[in-house]
C-alpha cells in the first residue's frame, strides 16, 4: 500500500527516541492524577458495608468487586495509555520536500500537515523542564493562519536550533506575504 502518509521524499526523519520517554512520563503523571482520586471516590461511594450507598450496593451481586471496578478500569486504561504514549511519540516524523516542510503524526487518527516555507512567519523553539533534562526541544512553525498547528517536538536541542535557523533563512528567500 502506497498510503497517504508514506514519506514525501526518500524517508521520514523520526524524532529522538528520548521523546518517547517524555510522552510516557507525561502519560504516567496525567493518568495517575486522574485515576487515583476517581478510583478512591468510587470505592468510597460503592463500599458495601457502611459506605455512602451501602443500602443499595449491599443488595447487588458482586458488591465486593463493584467497589474496585473503577480501580481495575483505571489500571487497564493506564497501561494502555502508557503503551500508546511511546508509540504515539514514535509515529511523529517530519521531512523536507522541495519548498515545504511536511509533518506527520498519529496512530489511529493520522495527520499530515504541509507548510510551504514561504508562508513561515515565526519559527519557535520551546523546551519544557523534562525536555531540558533530556536535551530535547520543540520547533513550532507559525504561519499567518491560526489553524496551521505545525510543530515538531522531541528534537535534540542543537538539531532544533539548526532547523529553526534553516527554516527562517529559506522562508526569507522564498517569502511571499499575505
Amino acid at each position: 500500500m502506497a498510503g497517504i502518509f508514506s514519506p514525501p521524499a526518500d524517508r521520514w526523519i523520526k524524532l529522538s527516541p528520548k521523546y518517547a520517554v517524555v510522552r510516557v512520563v507525561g502519560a504516567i503523571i496525567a493518568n495517575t492524577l486522574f485515576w487515583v482520586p476517581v478510583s478512591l471516590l468510587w470505592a468510597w461511594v460503592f463500599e458495601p458495608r457502611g459506605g455512602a450507598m451501602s443500602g443499595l450496593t449491599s443488595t447487588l451481586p458482586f458488591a465486593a468487586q463493584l467497589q474496585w471496578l473503577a480501580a481495575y478500569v483505571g489500571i487497564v486504561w493506564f497501561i494502555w495509555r502508557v503503551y500508546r504514549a511511546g508509540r504515539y511519540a514514535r509515529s511523529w516524523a517530519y521531512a523536507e520536500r522541495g519548498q515545504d516542510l511536511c509533518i506527520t503524526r498519529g496512530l489511529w487518527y493520522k495527520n499530515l500537515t504541509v507548510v510551504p516555507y514561504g508562508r513561515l512567519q515565526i519559527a519557535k523553539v520551546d523546551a519544557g523542564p523534562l525536555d531540558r533534562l533530556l536535551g530535547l526541544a520543540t520547533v513550532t512553525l507559525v504561519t499567518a493562519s491560526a489553524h496551521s498547528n505545525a510543530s515538531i517536538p522531541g528534537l535534540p536541542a542543537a538539531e532544533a536550533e539548526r532547523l529553526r535557523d534553516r527554516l527562517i533563512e529559506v522562508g526569507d528567500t522564498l517569502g511571499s506575504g499575505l
Partner: protein
Amino acid sequence: MTAPYGQQPPSYPPPEYPETPAWTSAPPQEPVRKVEERAHPLTPLVRGWFAVVAVAWAMLQEWLQGRTDGTDRLPWWVFVAVIGGVAALGLIAGFISWRFTRFIADETELRVESGWISHRSRRISYTRLQSVDVMQPLAARLLGLAEVRIDAGAHDSTKLRYLSRRRAYELRDFLMLRAHGAQVSVDVARARTADPLFADLGGSDRVIVTVPPHELLLGAFVSHDLLSLIIGFAVPVAAVWGVAAYFGHDAAAAIPVVALAGGVPLLFSIAQYFTRRVMAQFNFTLAETQAGLRITRGLTNLTSQTVPVRRIQSIRLSQPLFWRPLRRYRVDLEVLGLGEATHNESTSKVSTLLLPIGTKKQVDAALAAVWPGLRLDAIQYVRSPRHAVVFDPLSYSWNSFGVDDNVVVTRRGWLTRHQSIVPHARLQSVAAYQGPLERLLGLANVTFHTTGLLHTHAVIHMNADLARTLVYDEADRAMTSRDGELLR
C-alpha cells in the same frame, strides 16, 4: 525621547531610501509641521446619550407605575436631578476622553494618541491597513457624526469617534488610497471625497449589487433562524398543552389561553426578528470604488465597510436548505481582522457579509468585482467515491473539490451547503487527516488553512490516494501561484 505629552515630536529628517521617496514634493530641509486633529467637539454628547436615555426610560416607568398604584410618587425634581447627574457624568467622561484623543493622518504617518491616566500611542503602517469602516449609529447620525474604524492585523481595531461625517469619509478615502499604495496627499483625497447622506457613493463609484428590502424579507422568511424561533416556541407550548390534556383538563377550552400565552410573544419576536434583520441590511449596496470594495447598509445605523481587494483571503458561498429552490446564495469574505464568520445578520457591526442574499447573477457580479480572473463555472469538480455515502448520506452528492490555476474550490455541508473559494496564493498550509474507519474504506480529509476563520475550507471523505496528490500539489501551487491573474 521624552517629549512631554501633547507637544509636537521633534521632526527628524526623512530616512535615506534608494528610490525617490514620495514626499520629495515637500522640500526636506523645511521642518514639516504636523497637523494634529481632535475628534468632533460634539462627541461627548453622543457618548453620553445612551446612558441618559436608559436612565430616563427607567425613571419614566417607575413614575407611571407609581401613578397607577396610587402610591406616593417621587417629586419631579428628583427625576430632573438624577437624569441631569447622569448626563453630567457622561458628558464629563466623554469630554475627558475627547480632550485626550488626537490623531495625525498625513503623508508620512498615521498615529493615534489617546488616554488620560495611561497614555497610548498607536502608529499604523499604511501598507498594512486591512480595512477601514465608517459606522454611524443613530445618535451620531442625527448630529452628522461618524466613527472611523481602522483594522490592521489581527489585533483589535483602532476607533476614531466621532468625526464629522465629511471628515470621516475623507479620512477613509485617504487611508484606503494609501493602503492601495497610491502616494496621494491629504488634499487630493479631500478633493475626491463626496459627502452623501444615505448611500456613501461618490461620482466615480460603480454600483455592483443592491439588495432590495423584499429580497431581505424573502431571505429572512425562509431561513433556519425563523424556523428555529417557531420551534423554540411551539415545542414548550405543545408540551404544556399535552400534559394538561393528559391529566384530564379540557383541551379545547385551553386554546384561547395557549394562543394568547404562546402566540403573542411569538408574533412579537418574529416581528422583531424581521425588522432588525431588514433594518441592519437595509439598502445593502456593494460598490466598486477607487479605494476598494465598499459595502454600505443600514436604515437607522449606517455602516460603511471598505475592503481592499488584495486583502481578501477567501470567499464562501452558502445556501441554506430552504434557499435551494429559490436559487439564492449568501456570500461571505475572509479578511484579516474581521474575525469569525458573522452569524447574526441583524447586527450593524462590521461583518463578513459580501452579499446577504442574491441570485446567481448577483453572486457572479460580486465575485467578478473581487476577482475578475475567477472562472468559477469552468471548474471541474471531483466527487468522493461512491462508498463515502456511509459517512455522509445527506451531503454525499455535494461533497467535492475543484482546482484550477488560480483557486481551489471545496464544497461541503448538508443543512447549509457551503462552497469555499481559496486562491492558491492565499493558502497558508495544507493538512490531511484520516481516522481508522476512513482508512478501512480508503478515504481521507484535506483541510486548507487560510488566515481567516471561516473554518470550512475542507474536502471530506475523498479518495485517499487523491488526497495525497492534492495535499502535495496544493503546497506546490501555493508557492508558485501569484494572484496577479486572478485580480486582473
